[in-house]
């Protein structure tokens, strides 16, 4: 009786953690896609972001939530970096550099 209760408790803990992970992975993928579009809107999308998001979705479909989260986080961070890179460059890359003198 005691064993049965213990294992049921453990199982439900594991299951709820799994569900939480899955939801979190889905959320992060969604955030990554939003960030990807934002970076693309200023011409700052990096090469591999689309690949990571695609792979994250596949991993999630196959039940590998850890991999999905890892890939989605990568895509999200790279999208943020690409966006800030483009915004910064919009301010500083307007005239021929100083080393190009007449």
């Amino acid at each position: 009786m005691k064993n049965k209760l213990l294992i049921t408790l453990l199982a439900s803990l594991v299951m709820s953690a799994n569900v939480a992970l899955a939801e979190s992975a889905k959320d992060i993928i969604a955030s990554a896609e939003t960030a990807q579009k934002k970076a693309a809107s200023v011409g700052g999308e990096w090469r591999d972001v689309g690949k990571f998001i695609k792979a994250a979705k596949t991993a999630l479909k196959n039940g590998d939530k850890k991999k999905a989260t890892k890939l989605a986080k990568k895509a999200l961070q790279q999208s943020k970096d690409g966006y800030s890179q483009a915004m910064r460059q919009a301010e500083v890359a307007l005239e021929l550099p100083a080393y190009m003198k007449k």
Partner: protein
Amino acid sequence: MKVRNHWTKLLLSLTTVTIIVASTQPLLAEDKKELSKAEQGRAIAFDRKKGNCLACHVMGDGEMPGNIAPPLIVMKARYPDKAKLRAQVWDATVKNPNTAMPPFGRHQILSEKEIDAVVEYVYGL
């Protein structure tokens, strides 16, 4: 009675699996210890998809190096403070906004651990 046996069996097998998996960990860690940090760093530095440092730097026994950047020699004399060397690898634009060197840390081209290893290797050149 039958149900109790099933649950106990499950608990036992879960425990056994855990013990087996845990006991293999020391073996896996030992494989990694075979390569020193500096040797790992050299591999990362020379990997075209990772550091790709040879694209621009003459360094160590690397073949067909580029000449875009200063050769990596007498590094301890040039960077007495190892942390400053690490900072340069992490983001070279801080010291030189016009640099052609990619920001390996800031743009996550290399992980923090990989940068540590590369710095270990480069510092010894």
